[in-house]
C-alpha cells in the first residue's frame, strides 16, 4: 500500500483590491511582482514591501469590459490583457510606468485568453468566436500572422509550448488542439487534436520539457497527455511524421465541480488545480511512476481556499512551493506549499 504524505498549504496573504470577481493572476517572470485582473476592468500590479504584498500600480481605461486574462512577456517589460470587449491590449513599461501602447483588434467577440511565446516574438489569443489568432511582434507593431478556425466552439485557453513555437488551445468543444507554423506558406495549422475529455476543457499547462500537457475540464478530471515523436521508443505510429499525443493518465474522483485552471510547476513538477468547489488541490507524480503510464497522488487539498469558485492558480516562477490564486470572492491569495 502506498502511503500518501500530505503536505500543507499555508496562506501567506490575502490581497484585497479588486471590486467584483478576480479572473486571473500572473507572476512577473522574475517573481518580484504579481498582476491580477477581473470584472472591474482593472489590472492591479502587486509588489512586495517586506513582508507584505501591496498594490504598486492600478492600470485602468485599457478596456471597456471585463479583463479575463493577463500575461507578462518573457522579458517582463510588457503585459498583454485579454478582454470581453473583444480586444487585447499590450501595456509597456518603457517610460517607467505602464501604458497601453497597442490594441489588438480582430476577434469578433470576447477574448478569453492570451499567451506570449518563449521568445516573446509571438502572441496567441483566443475567443468565443471559436478562433485562435497568432500575432507577430515587430518593434511594438503587432501583425496578424494567422487566424485559425480549428475549434467548433468557444476557445477558453491558449498556452505556448515551454520552449518551442508551438501553441495549444483548450475549448468548449471538449478538445485541446496544437498548432504549428507551416514553413511553406507561413500559415499555421493544427498538428494534433487531443480528445478524451467529455466536457469543456477549461485550461492546460505544459510541463518543463514541453513533452507533456496537463488539461482540466468541466468533466471534473485532470488528464496528462504525452507526446510521442516520430521513431519513439514504444513504437507508437506517427502518421505524416508528426508527433502523436496520447492521454496517458486521468486523475479522477477528487474534484467535485468544474476544474477551471491548472498549473504545472517548472521547478518541482507539482500540479495545482483551481476548482468550482472552492478547493485548491496539489498533485504529485509518484516516485515509481511509469513514464508511459504515469500515476499522480493528491498531496494537498485546501478546503475553502476561497469562499467562491477558484478561477486561477499559478506557481511562482522561482520560489518552489509558492503560488497565487484568484477567485470569484474578489480576492487574490498567496500560498506556500510545505511538503
Amino acid at each position, binding site marked *: 500500500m502506498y502511503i500518501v504524505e500530505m503536505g500543507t498549504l499555508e496562506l501567506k496573504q490575502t490581497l484585497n483590491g479588486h471590486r467584483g470577481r478576480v479572473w486571473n493572476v500572473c507572476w512577473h517572470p522574475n517573481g518580484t511582482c504579481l498582476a491580477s485582473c477581473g470584472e472591474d476592468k482593472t489590472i492591479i500590479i502587486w509588489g512586495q514591501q517586506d513582508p507584505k504584498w501591496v498594490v504598486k500600480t492600478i492600470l485602468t481605461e485599457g478596456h471597456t469590459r471585463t479583463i479575463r486574462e493577463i500575461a507578462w512577456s518573457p522579458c517582463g517589460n510588457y503585459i498583454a490583457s485579454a478582454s470581453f470587449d473583444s480586444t487585447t491590449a499590450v501595456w509597456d513599461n518603457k517610460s517607467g510606468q505602464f501604458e497601453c501602447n497597442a490594441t489588438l483588434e480582430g476577434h469578433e467577440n470576447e477574448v478569453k485568453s492570451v499567451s506570449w511565446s518563449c521568445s516573446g516574438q509571438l502572441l496567441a489569443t483566443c475567443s468565443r468566436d471559436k478562433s485562435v489568432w497568432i500575432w507577430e511582434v515587430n518593434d511594438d507593431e503587432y501583425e496578424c500572422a494567422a487566424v485559425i*478556425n480549428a475549434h467548433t466552439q468557444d476557445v477558453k485557453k491558449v498556452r505556448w509550448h515551454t520552449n518551442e513555437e508551438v501553441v495549444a488551445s483548450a475549448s468548449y468543444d471538449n478538445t485541446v488542439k496544437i498548432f504549428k507554423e507551416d514553413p511553406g506558406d507561413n*500559415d499555421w495549422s493544427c498538428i494534433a487534436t487531443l480528445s478524451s475529455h467529455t466536457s469543456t476543457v477549461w485550461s492546460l499547462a505544459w510541463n518543463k520539457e514541453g513533452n507533456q500537457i496537463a488539461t482540466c475540464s468541466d468533466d471534473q478530471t485532470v488528464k496528462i497527455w504525452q507526446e510521442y515523436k516520430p521513431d519513439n521508443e514504444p513504437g507508437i505510429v506517427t502518421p505524416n511524421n508528426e508527433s502523436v499525443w496520447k492521454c496517458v493518465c486521468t486523475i479522477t474522483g477528487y474534484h467535485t465541480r468544474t476544474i477551471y485552471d491548472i498549473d504545472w510547476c517548472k521547478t518541482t513538477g507539482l500540479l495545482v488545480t483551481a476548482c468550482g468547489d472552492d478547493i485548491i488541490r496539489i498533485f504529485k507524480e509518484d516516485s515509481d511512476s511509469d513514464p508511459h503510464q504515469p500515476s499522480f497522488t493528491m498531496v494537498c487539498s485546501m478546503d475553502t481556499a476561497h469562499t467562491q469558485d477558484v478561477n486561477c492558480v499559478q506557481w511562482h516562477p522561482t520560489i518552489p512551493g509558492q503560488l497565487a490564486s484568484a477567485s470569484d470572492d474578489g480576492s487574490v491569495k498567496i500560498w506556500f506549499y510545505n511538503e
Partner: protein
Amino acid sequence: MTSRFSGALQITNLDDFITPSQECIKPIEIQKSKSKTGAKIKIEEDGTPFVLNEAGQSEKLQKVEITLADCLACSGCITSAETVLVTQQSQEELMRVFREKISQCESKNGVYSTYIAVSLSVQAVLSIAERYSLDPERALNKLAGYFYQLGADIVLDMTVADDFALLESAKEFIERYKAAKGGAVNQLPMLSSSCPGWVCYAEKTHGNFILPYISVTKSPQQIMGSLVKYHLAETMGLLPEQVYHVTVMPCYDKKLEASREDFYNYERKSRDVDCVITPIELEQMFNEHNVSLNEIHEKEVGKLVESQMKDFKNNLCGHSGSGSGGYAEFILCFAARHLFDETDVTVEFKNLRNPDFQEVVFQKDGQTLLTFAIANGFRNIQNLVQKLKRGKCPYDYVEVMACPSGCLNGGAQIRPLNNIQPRELALKLESMYQKLPQSNPEQNSLVQNLYKNWLGGEYTDKALAYFHTQYHEIKKIDTALAIKW
C-alpha cells in the same frame, strides 16, 4: 461538419454554431387573434407544436422559415445551417428546376415557361478540368454538354462579365484617384468588391468605416446576372422572371452574394442569379447520377450576341495577373496609361510577409506614382484593415480576396486528391490559368457592342444601374443572452 464558407465568413459567425431554432432573433409574424391569457402551446409526441385557442381547440403552429436573405440582413446568429442554403441554392433545387422544365416540355407540347441559362466561371471550369484530367477548353465544352443534356437552353462562359468588371473597376479607380487628388476623402485606397466573403465581413464587422473604400462595381457574377436577366432575356423576348439563371462558381460565398436584396427585383420578383452551384457540388452530382464527364458529348458554349467572337477560336479566357481575375494588374496598367500616359508598364509583384500579401509599384522618372497590393486570406485582410484604421495604409488599390491564394483556391473548388496540399493544387490551377488565351477587356468587341447598343454608352444611368451596386452596414446587436463565460 466543416463549413465550406471562407474564413472571413466563419469568423463573423456565419456557420453552424447556432442553428436557427436555437437563438435566431428574426421576429416571427404569427397571424393570430389576441387572447387575454396568453397562448398555450402544446407539443405533440412527434414534436409538432400546437397552439390552443380560447375555445380550447388546437391549431397547428406554422413552422418558421428563414431565408438566406434574412440571415444576410441580420447581425444575430447568422447561420449557414445547410438547411437554409439547401432550400434555395442547392443541387437538389437545381435538379428540381431541370426536371420541372423537362416535364413542362413533355406535357405542353414543347411550350414552357422557364428558360434556363447557365454561366460558367473560368476558375470553376479549371477546377473541373484538373479533377477530370481534361484540357480547359474541353472541360468547358463537356460542362456545356452536361448542362444542355440536363435541359439548359443556353450555357455561357463569363469572360464578358469578367471584362466588364475589370473595365468598370478601372474607370471607377480613375474617378476616385482624381477625386482624392482634388481633396475628397474616403476615396483611396480603393478596395476590390468581387469577393462576397470579404464584402460580407466588411459590412458586418467594420461597417461604415470601411465600406466607402470598397469599389461599387458589381462582381462578375452579378454583372453576368444583369446581362442574362436584362439583356439576354430582352433579346429572347422574355421577361426576367421567365429566365432561371444558374452560375457555376469557385466559392460557396457566391451563394450569399446572389441572395443579396440588392440583386433582387421586387417588381419582377426576379433574382439576377437564381442558383449558384460549385465544383464540389458538381462532383457530387456526377457521382450521384453516375455521370462520367469524359463520356459527355462536347458542346459549344452559347453566344450573348449573334456576332460575338467570330474572330475567337477559344471561349475560355483568362486575364493577365492573379487567378482571381487580375484586378490589381489590369487597373494598375489602365491607370498608368490614363493618368500618367505610360503604356509600357512592367508589373512585378513582390511578396511581403507571406505569399498571400503582395505589393506592386508603378514608378516614372524615379518617382513612385501608384502603389497597389493583393491581400488574400483572412489574416491579410486583418492586417490591411488595421493599417487603414491606424492611417498607415500606403496603397492606392488593394485586390482583396477572402481565400488564401485567391479565387482559384475558392472554398468550393474540388479538394485535392491523395496527399496534395491545397496550396499546391492552387499553384497548378494558377499555371493552367496563366496558359489560357488572355482576354483584353478594352479590345473585346462584345463589350463595346453592349456598351453601345444595349446601354447607350459607357456612362449612362443604365450602365450604372446594371454594373454598380451598394453596401450596407450591419450593426451588431449585443444581447445579454448572447454572453457566454
